[in-house]
């Protein structure tokens, strides 16, 4: 099993823990401001004020999944509000759209406070990499909105137009009650409908009017009927009131009352009417197709998320003289494991992902074979320094011997007919026996490391004890051998474990626990300033490829919440 790839140490966390860290980070307003804005932009020619709100609650929970070896796909609900104070249709001056966005975050390393931390960086996010699987709140734009814009525009233009002594009054229901004469036209308000002609869309609009031509003794209510081209894009609907189309869509004026001069009056008023209605100008209504709305969301969400990043694994040396190696992360998509590698041993090969050794644990720490063997051989060399020269004299109360060789190798469960992983010891010693030739005894056998776990309020206490396998319990010579081997094995376990904890950013919490030993944080005790980590190593498994320490982890939010205050009875009082 590949525990640590081309590194010495590995920490593996389950996706549930990664999600916990994300949610804690997501609750941090410093990292993820949940309300962004106002962002002032020009939207379809209209000044717009945009507010972005990121959500993560029971109704709209944020989530994540592992996308590939280096990316986590975040699923975050967003609410985007666009305020368009100059919207031609006042009902469209406030649009609120909700969407769920899928955003890839890159597993990345960056320096922070003098230490490289491993986390999620969104710097590479572009609008096109933001997925919008759901979108709601997009208002449909139709003739009602267009007419609402026309009604609204009516309020801004003159309603009485004169040419010499002739007067043309344009009504829109009771929007202008100062007009003379009163509005008795039919229809009484401006009306419109969409018509198609020549492959183009037009809005046919009927304006109620009153025309007064004293020279012709003509005074009558009536209507002006115009057709104006409607142009739709992905983001706008534009009605150009200034352009008069050719017949048969040209402007028509009708009167309610029959009069001999009606036809002449209508033809003479037509230029006045066209000019008056041109005052409505070009009415442009922001009107997004769903594709355009998605694009707008993608643009805004990408802009929101791009400067964000948060640490998932933040080792702090705390000592400038003890630099920590940069953590390198890999995501194991299938089993849902985040693997963090530290202390690159072999830089001649490209970094690669380790295997999943987390199993069903919340946390697992691994030490690679090369590092373990380095410590084993180093400790044996110190314990028996003369072995390098070929022999090491050993004197015990039980007798003397000359150790000629001693080797230790890691072995998997199943090797040497042993169901448990072990250190396989081999060696040769010349045993000194009085009055008899000294025999050379070649020996080999397994050393197991048994662990027990005790939990207290202050810590979990992991006790490791070496045990020589394959001895019958009544074999007293066992004690003599164990007296030599157990201290070595103990020191190996101690050295490897502490090196592991030191290298992955763990730390000393307290000197004394339960009057026995030090309490250690096996991994960095703080994540990114947002979470307090309590972790415990619950055992030790020996493998040919190294040591595995399964463990448990729990996270606690550092920042104080409403619930914290409530639980502690510290809510503000009136």
């Amino acid at each position, binding site marked *: 099993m590949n525990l640590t790839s081309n590194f010495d140490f590995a920490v593996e966390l389950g996706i549930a823990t990664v999600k916990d860290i994300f949610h804690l980070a997501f609750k941090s307003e410093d990292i993820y401001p949940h309300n962004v804005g106002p962002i002032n932009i020009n939207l379809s020619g209209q000044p717009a004020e945009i507010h972005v709100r990121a959500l993560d609650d029971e109704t709209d929970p944020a989530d994540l999944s592992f996308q590939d070896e280096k990316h986590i796909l975040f699923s975050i609900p967003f609410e985007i509000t666009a305020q368009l104070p100059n919207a031609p249709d006042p009902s469209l001056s406030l649009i609120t759209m909700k969407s769920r966005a899928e955003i890839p975050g890159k597993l990345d390393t960056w320096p922070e406070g003098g230490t490289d931390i491993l986390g999620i960086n969104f710097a590479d996010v572009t609008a096109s990499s933001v997925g919008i699987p759901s979108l709601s709140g997009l208002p449909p734009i139709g003739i009602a909105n267009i007419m609402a814009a026309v009604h609204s525009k009516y309020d801004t233009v003159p309603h009485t137009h004169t040419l010499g002594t002739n007067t043309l009054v344009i009504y829109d229901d009771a929007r202008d009650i100062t007009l003379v004469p009163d509005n008795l036209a039919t229809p009484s308000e401006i009306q419109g409908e969409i018509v198609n002609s020549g492959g183009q869309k037009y809005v046919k609009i009927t304006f109620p009017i009153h025309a007064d031509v004293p020279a012709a003794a003509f005074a009558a209510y009536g209507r002006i009927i115009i057709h104006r081209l409607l142009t739709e894009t992905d983001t706008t609907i534009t009605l150009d009131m200034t352009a008069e189309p050719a017949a048969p869509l040209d402007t028509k004026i009708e009167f309610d009352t029959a009069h001999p001069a009606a036809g002449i009056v209508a033809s003479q008023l037509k230029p006045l009417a066209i000019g008056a209605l041109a005052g409505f100008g070009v009415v442009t209504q922001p009107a997004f197709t769903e594709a355009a709305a998605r694009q707008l969301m993608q643009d805004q969400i990408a802009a929101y998320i791009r400067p964000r990043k948060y640490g998932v694994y933040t080792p702090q040396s705390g000592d400038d003289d003890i630099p920590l190696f940069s953590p390198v992360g890999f995501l194991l998509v299938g089993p849902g494991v985040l693997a963090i590698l530290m202390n690159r041993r072999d830089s001649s090969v490209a970094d690669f992902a380790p295997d999943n050794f987390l199993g069903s644990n919340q946390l697992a720490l691994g030490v690679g074979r090369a590092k373990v063997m380095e410590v084993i051989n180093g400790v044996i060399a110190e314990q028996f320094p003369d072995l390098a020269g070929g022999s090491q004299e050993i004197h015990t109360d039980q007798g003397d011997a000359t150790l000629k060789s001693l080797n230790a190798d890691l072995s998997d469960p199943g090797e040497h007919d042993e169901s448990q992983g072990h250190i396989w010891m081999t060696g040769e010693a010349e045993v000194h026996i009085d009055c008899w030739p000294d025999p050379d005894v070649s020996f080999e056998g397994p050393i197991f490391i048994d662990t027990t776990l005790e939990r207290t309020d202050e810590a979990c206490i992991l006790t490791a004890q070496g045990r020589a396998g394959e001895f019958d319990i009544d074999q007293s010579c066992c004690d003599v051998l164990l007296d030599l081997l157990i201290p070595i094995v103990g020191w190996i376990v101690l050295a490897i474990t502490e090196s592991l904890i*030191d290298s992955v950013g763990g730390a000393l919490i307290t000197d004394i626990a339960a009057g026995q030993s030090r309490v250690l944080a096996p991994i960095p005790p703080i994540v990114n300033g947002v979470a307090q980590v309590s972790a415990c190593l619950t055992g030790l498994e020996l493998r040919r490829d190294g040591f595995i320490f399964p463990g448990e982890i729990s996270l606690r939010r550092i920042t104080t919440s409403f619930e914290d205050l409530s639980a502690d009875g510290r809510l503000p009082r009136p």
Partner: protein
Amino acid sequence: MPEKPRKPSGGEISTSKGAEPAKPVTISTHKQLAAKTAEIVSRLNQDPELARLLLVNPAAAIQDAGYSLSPEILKHVLETVRHSKVTAEKRQGLEALLEKEFGEHPQPLDPVWLKRALFEKLKLQPLDTAGREPVYRNALSPELLKRLGKFRPSLRRAKVATPKPLHGVALQVSLCHKWPGRFDLDAPLDKLAPAAAPPAAVDLNTLYFYKDSHPLVRSLIELAVIQRSSFPIHSPDSYRKIRSGEKPNPLRTWVKAVRFKQS
């Protein structure tokens, strides 16, 4: 662990190449033993399986190699393997002392005998030793500890302010095989409360807590340690069962080969 019976070595050891089994060579004096040592060693080297059985019962293995040992030589062989000369002398001295004081052969590995020795012979006050662990001498010398120190990092202290105390792991690794041979007989002990009654039996760990109660207790412990750490020689019957494969060799894994130098 499941037993893994060893295959028989192939039956009786023949001392000649003839069809008839050779008559065993009798060794009844130290001089004869010395004269035959090279020959015995050679034969054992020729039969690695038999050489390995030397550690089960050396006298029986030599006899299987074709030599008949007189009772005196047999005892000599067994005692030589069992202890070094110095340890054997110390054991004899302790046994003599304790036998004189207790009026019987001391049996410090027998919990019932120990109970009687402490509370009937020496009339010691029973102590409440429940939950107590003996003090053990360090297995690593200070010099070695200093050299090994380079493998242990100086762990940095967590410099964080957290709303709740950090919870972590306290690592306890035994750097000492806790057996009676590591008892620290000079370590000062806390004064133990008297017990209402003697324990049902006294094992060596319990005996340790009486080390300062009477001078003979220390001798009892020393003798117990010697007896316990002596080379475990199997009875002839046990040897035969191991040789025939009826019973597993307790050293079957660890002792791969035993070979003597030959001049």
